[in-house]
């Protein structure tokens, strides 16, 4: 098999916030680095983040990164690793200042400092009053950040493989990762990108659900790559449902709406969050608000012909505030719901939004697996950062505006660590034909498929199962049922056919490869969700409604071959005392 090789110090898969931050770090330090992205970098889904990015800058009153850490640990329902959370919250201010220096056009306050708004789950003084900790560029923070990072990469002349698709990881002869098989979408050319280290920053996988705020491209590619390389995924049952997706369409309207003073209403015009969470009300954690909305809907207090949504009221904020702080929401509501937010509320419903789980990593972004004794082991040559990684700062539920923080903090951390590692020398991995053939097998399967089922049928069925059986509320029986159906679907997918085998910009081929990944992610979610017999954060079971720290205060692991396992949740902190286990306010 002749496969052309392109050799690099580091290859980064994905050009969202995490990938670009890591790439920038390495490019600026003069390393030979390639950034591979299936879309042009500024089209990555980071661009859609609206609300902001948390950091205890203290621009509107006193703040402390320890308070931020407390909120994050609480928000995560104690499934987050406290060493990682400490690292993230402590480095948040510097990371934001760095972004500001790069040119990110943050909104400003009267003193000319970065504007900070209130956001869900953010408190002062360990659970006190609402904190204004979320730095924002109007309601386009993700867009502003992604473009700023890309612009800095343009300046640093980072080598970009734009519209190239990472097919599968290539293992080295000694069990590490030696790079990736990449497919040029424009020409159909396939190459082996060989590198001393590979960073996966492929983002989320929300497209496994029927309705999601995620982009079409959020298909969990990195997660599929990792599973097929024999490595585990962690906490794959932990999906966040965002309380305010526009009903029926799934388009996101930011939590910043509630941060600016908006609130939710049921069909009786009742501000129901006052009932579920008297302290933080509409700015409770997302899992709490989503569950509350779903209860309202299930108990018949929803609106619409099917009674399947609630309302987000904003008009009382006044046209000026809405125009200045929430301009995107204004247009989105107009376009997708036909609503003028200065006059009427937006119909919203909890919508699949974010994956807290992913490939386990340490705070340096190094991907971990567990050995036979159940001990963590670093996978040589493989890093992960961003939504596809589970470091884990979000645990069982992510706080709003912690995702943009996660991607820059750990994109940077991975970059810094790899930079140092390259400085002290990483050997170029050795690859044999067997490894290359294995990495090519999936692409070859599709390319030589002759007869079989259309993949879109399978895709549609998968999404329906996920939506129905693995949504906001979960139940053992229905999950078992869903899991069986998914397993049958995976079998069918192995025999599905790729009709169009043309080379030039064949999006059907990419969709087929993506579906493989989505199926892996769906299965990992189903297995992990069925297995975790408690309710915690984003995972709420009707049959096990309570958190069970005695049995389940641990990360769940899932391997591609069906094996499952566990990892300890880290309570080890460096500078500050760990947050003690306690129940969350509900």
């Amino acid at each position: 098999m002749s496969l052309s090789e392109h050799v690099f110090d580091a290859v980064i898969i994905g050009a969202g916030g995490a990938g670009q931050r890591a790439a920038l770090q390495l490019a600026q330090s003069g390393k030979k680095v390639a950034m591979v992205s299936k879309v042009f970098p500024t089209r990555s889904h980071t661009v859609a983040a609206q609300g902001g990015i948390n950091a205890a800058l203290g621009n509107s009153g006193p703040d402390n990164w320890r308070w931020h850490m407390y909120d994050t640990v609480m928000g995560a329902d104690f499934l987050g690793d406290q060493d990682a959370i400490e690292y993230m919250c402590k480095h948040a201010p510097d990371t934001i200042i760095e972004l500001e220096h790069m040119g990110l056009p943050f909104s400003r306050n009267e003193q000319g400092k970065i504007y900070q708004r209130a956001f869900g789950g953010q408190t002062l003084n360990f659970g006190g009053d609402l904190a204004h900790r979320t730095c924002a560029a109007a309601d386009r923070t993700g867009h502003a950040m992604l473009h700023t990072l890309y612009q800095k990469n343009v300046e640093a002349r980072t080598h970009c493989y734009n519209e190239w698709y990472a097919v599968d990881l290539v293992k080295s002869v000694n069990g590490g990762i030696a790079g990736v098989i990449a497919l040029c979408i424009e020409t159909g050319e396939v190459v082996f990108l060989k590198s001393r280290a590979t960073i996966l920053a492929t983002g989320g996988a929300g497209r496994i659900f029927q309705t999601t705020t995620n982009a079409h491209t959020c298909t969990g590619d990195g997660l599929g790559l990792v599973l097929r390389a024999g490595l585990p995924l962690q906490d794959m049952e932990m999906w966040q449902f965002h309380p305010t997706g526009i009903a029926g369409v799934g388009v996101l309207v930011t939590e910043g709406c509630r941060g600016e003073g908006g609130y939710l209403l049921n069909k009786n015009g009742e501000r129901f969050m006052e009932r579920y969470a008297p302290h933080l009300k509409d700015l409770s954690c997302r899992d709490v608000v989503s569950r509350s909305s779903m209860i309202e809907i299930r108990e018949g207090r929803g609106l619409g012909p099917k009674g399947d949504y609630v309302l987000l009221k904003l008009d009382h904020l006044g046209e000026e505030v809405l125009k200045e702080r929430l301009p995107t929401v204004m247009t989105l509501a107009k376009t997708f719901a036909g609503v003028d937010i200065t006059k009427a509320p937006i119909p919203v419903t909890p919508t699949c939004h974010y994956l807290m789980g992913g490939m386990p990593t340490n705070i340096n972004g190094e991907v971990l697996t567990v050995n036979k004794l159940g001990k963590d082991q670093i996978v040589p040559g493989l890093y992960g950062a961003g939504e596809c990684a589970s470091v884990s700062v979000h645990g069982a539920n992510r706080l709003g505006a912690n995702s943009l923080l996660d991607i820059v903090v750990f994109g940077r951390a991975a970059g810094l660590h790899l930079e140092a590692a390259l400085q002290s020398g990483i050997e170029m991995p050795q690859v044999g034909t067997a490894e290359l053939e294995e990495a090519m097998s999936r692409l070859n399967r599709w390319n030589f498929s002759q007869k079989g089922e259309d993949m879109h049928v399978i895709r549609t069925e998968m999404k329906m199962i996920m939506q129905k059986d693995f949504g906001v509320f979960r139940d053992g029986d229905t999950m078992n049922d869903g899991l069986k159906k998914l397993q049958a679907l995976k079998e069918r997918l192995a025999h599905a056919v790729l009709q169009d085998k043309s080379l030039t910009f064949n999006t059907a081929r990419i969709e087929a490869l993506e579906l493989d990944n989505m199926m892996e992610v769906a299965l990992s979610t189903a297995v992990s969700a069925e297995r975790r017999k408690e309710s915690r954060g984003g995972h709420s079971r009707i049959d096990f409604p309570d958190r069970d720290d005695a049995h389940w205060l641990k990360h769940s692991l899932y391997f591609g071959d069906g094996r499952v396992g566990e990892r300890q949740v880290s309570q080890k902190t460096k500078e500050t005392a760990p947050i003690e286990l306690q129940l969350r306010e509900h």
Partner: protein
Amino acid sequence: MAKTNVTLTSSNAGMPEDRQLTVSIYRYNPDVDKKPYTQDYDIHTSEFQGVMMLDLLEALKIKDPTLGFRRSCSEGVCGSDGMNINGKNRLACVTSYLDFSNHITIRPLPGLPVVRDLIVDMTQFYKQYEKAKPFLQNKNDPPVRERLQSIEERNKLDGLYECILCACCTTSCPSFWWNPDKFMGPAALLWAYRFVADSRDTQKAERLEALEDPFSMFRCRTIMNCVDVCPKGLNPTKAIAHLRDEMLKDTS
């Protein structure tokens, strides 16, 4: 507990009525076609969910997987799915078919080489973007904290930084059609001004000087096709005018 009177004026409460659409799409796959042609598709709107042109295209792609187009966020912020729909450049994901008659024509963005079907080669567009040096340059040492910027100074960036690089504007501009290699086009010039207007950038003079030749910026004939099509409601023509004013201020 607080109670509010709920009045819902939302229009998506009911499903829109079923319509049979004929969609004429520009097709070209270099692997099989010698030259481009137009293919007509018939589809009932009840066959798919959603009212956006992207929903329609996704439904057509299930019928005909060979149909090529780019898409990602589906909410008008990633800028992937710019295309020429009924003669005007737009984003498919935020354009509703309800605004059109039952016959809709979709063609790729004008003026750029077609890779396949509705997918154009954007290399030239990105090259022009990079010519604008679209990154903050500040030759002073950064302070420990953020660089201060007043609300008024920050407001100058509004209407500039929101560009999503969808290329709708640049590919609607005749000046770009005739000189794609020399005229930077509205998007790149909007970005050029975004950094000239930033109080934190120290390279204003150099930036302006780089635009002074007869082509890069001065090819703009202020016909405002760019403003007409911008899905984000931005005004590149105005940005170009401001760049020119800055140049006049600098040189006179």
